[in-house]
């Protein structure tokens, strides 16, 4: 489906800014609710994330002593902007991407990393011990999951022969679901996504029992709310990306909702199944297992394409 709307509307209302933020909060609710159900709890009601966010936005923002003020205030905005910008290149909700060009996959991946970078900087900016440790952990974790995650998303791109997300979407929609063709890639992508979003068991950077809230310990009010929204938007993008790449693409809203929900169920189950990994375990896991598997998948794809060409 194609959307022919004014670019400003695309940017600000749908599928950009306003819509994304709201759907992000809805995703957060779904995440919390599903985890709660897995843990045999009732879970929050649907408006809980909205209420939390509104409350946070209305609260006083305390700027701690000894921080770089402009950076402190700007980082949440940059993080959110990065996430929102990335969303513009993704066929959101079954509609075609608002903007696209050849190679936008790379841009999206980099835009998604803005979040982690901002969190790392935010942590290093404040003087609290928890934030510094949190920032170190967040960045360490970023270096470990980034490569396998990238590899896992590159293999479908290579299979499709394009770096344009929209075209990959059409490719996966027309062919066999890539989860069947590249199961390893799918696993690495899902687990990488969880690492990227710092979901349990990869939540060492914000392990509340050790370092309170990690890099964001000193944030309050608006800054914290923006970071939260940013993270939720990233959750939306990440899930959508995996659906596009591995679950046969999205052609219409119903397909989008169903496939996202299915993936969500898997992700939340994984979230509630494991104990938190220590940061050294996370790094070890990713470099020893994740990266190797991703690489293997990539080689298999390249080899497969090569074989296919020879046979043809």
């Amino acid at each position: 489906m194609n959307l022919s709307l004014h670019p400003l509307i695309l940017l600000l209302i749908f599928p950009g800014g306003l819509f994304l933020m709201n759907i992000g909060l809805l995703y957060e609710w779904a995440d919390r609710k599903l985890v709660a159900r897995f843990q045999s709890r009732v879970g929050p009601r649907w408006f809980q994330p909205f209420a939390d966010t509104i409350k946070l936005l209305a609260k006083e923002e305390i700027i701690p002593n000894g921080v770089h003020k402009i950076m402190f205030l700007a980082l949440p905005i940059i993080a959110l902007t990065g996430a929102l910008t990335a969303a513009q290149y993704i066929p959101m909700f079954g509609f075609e991407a608002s903007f696209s060009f050849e190679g936008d996959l790379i841009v999206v991946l980099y835009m998604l990393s803005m979040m982690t970078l901002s969190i790392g900087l935010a942590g290093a900016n404040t003087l609290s011990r928890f934030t510094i440790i949190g920032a170190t952990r967040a960045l360490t974790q970023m270096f470990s999951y980034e490569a396998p995650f990238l590899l896992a998303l590159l293999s479908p791109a290579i299979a499709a022969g394009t770096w344009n997300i929209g075209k990959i979407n059409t490719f996966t929609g027309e062919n066999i679901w890539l989860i069947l063709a590249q199961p390893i890639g799918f696993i690495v992508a899902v687990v990488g996504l969880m690492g990227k979003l710092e979901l349990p068991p990869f939540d060492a950077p914000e392990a509340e029992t050790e370092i309170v809230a990690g890099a964001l310990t000193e944030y309050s009010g608006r800054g914290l709310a923006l970071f939260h929204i940013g993270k939720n938007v990233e959750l939306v993008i990440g899930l959508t990306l995996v659906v596009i790449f591995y679950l046969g693409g999205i052609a219409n809203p119903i397909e989008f909702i169903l496939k996202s929900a299915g993936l969500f169920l898997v992700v939340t189950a994984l979230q509630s199944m494991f104990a938190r990994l220590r940061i050294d375990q996370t790094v070890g896991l990713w470099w020893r297992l994740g990266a190797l598997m991703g690489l293997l998948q990539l080689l298999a794809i390249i080899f497969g394409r090569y074989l296919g060409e020879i046979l043809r």
Partner: protein
Amino acid sequence: MAIGVLFGDLVKALFTKPATQNYPFTKTIAPERLRGKLVYDPEKCVGCMLCMKDCPSNAIELLTVDKINKKFVMRYHPDRCVFCAQCVQLCRFNCLNMSNSLWEMASTTKEAFEVYYGREEDIAFLLERAAQPGINEPPCE
């Protein structure tokens, strides 16, 4: 050595009723033996004052209206009470009991936590006397 041992329980939990409940809207029934608010029967009381003496949190005040005719009024403070039931145990005349109703206690005022037990005319008499200036309440030994 396994990964995801909990998987079976996760699936089970998804399809069973949650263990938690929507508290103020659904309430559990208090068990029969629950030690809730104290109940006092003035007809049986002989005024041995043991309950007052041994109360660990001074939640009981037994006010004497007329010692000879065994007229007593109990001023009970549920907010101080620790619900240990020591007074119930001590009372040889069974005039103290703990009910299992009313176990959720919250109030914005202190007045709700001052409960008078006794014959109505005794309480009225006491309150009237307390309202008069200059005359103190009867001593509660």
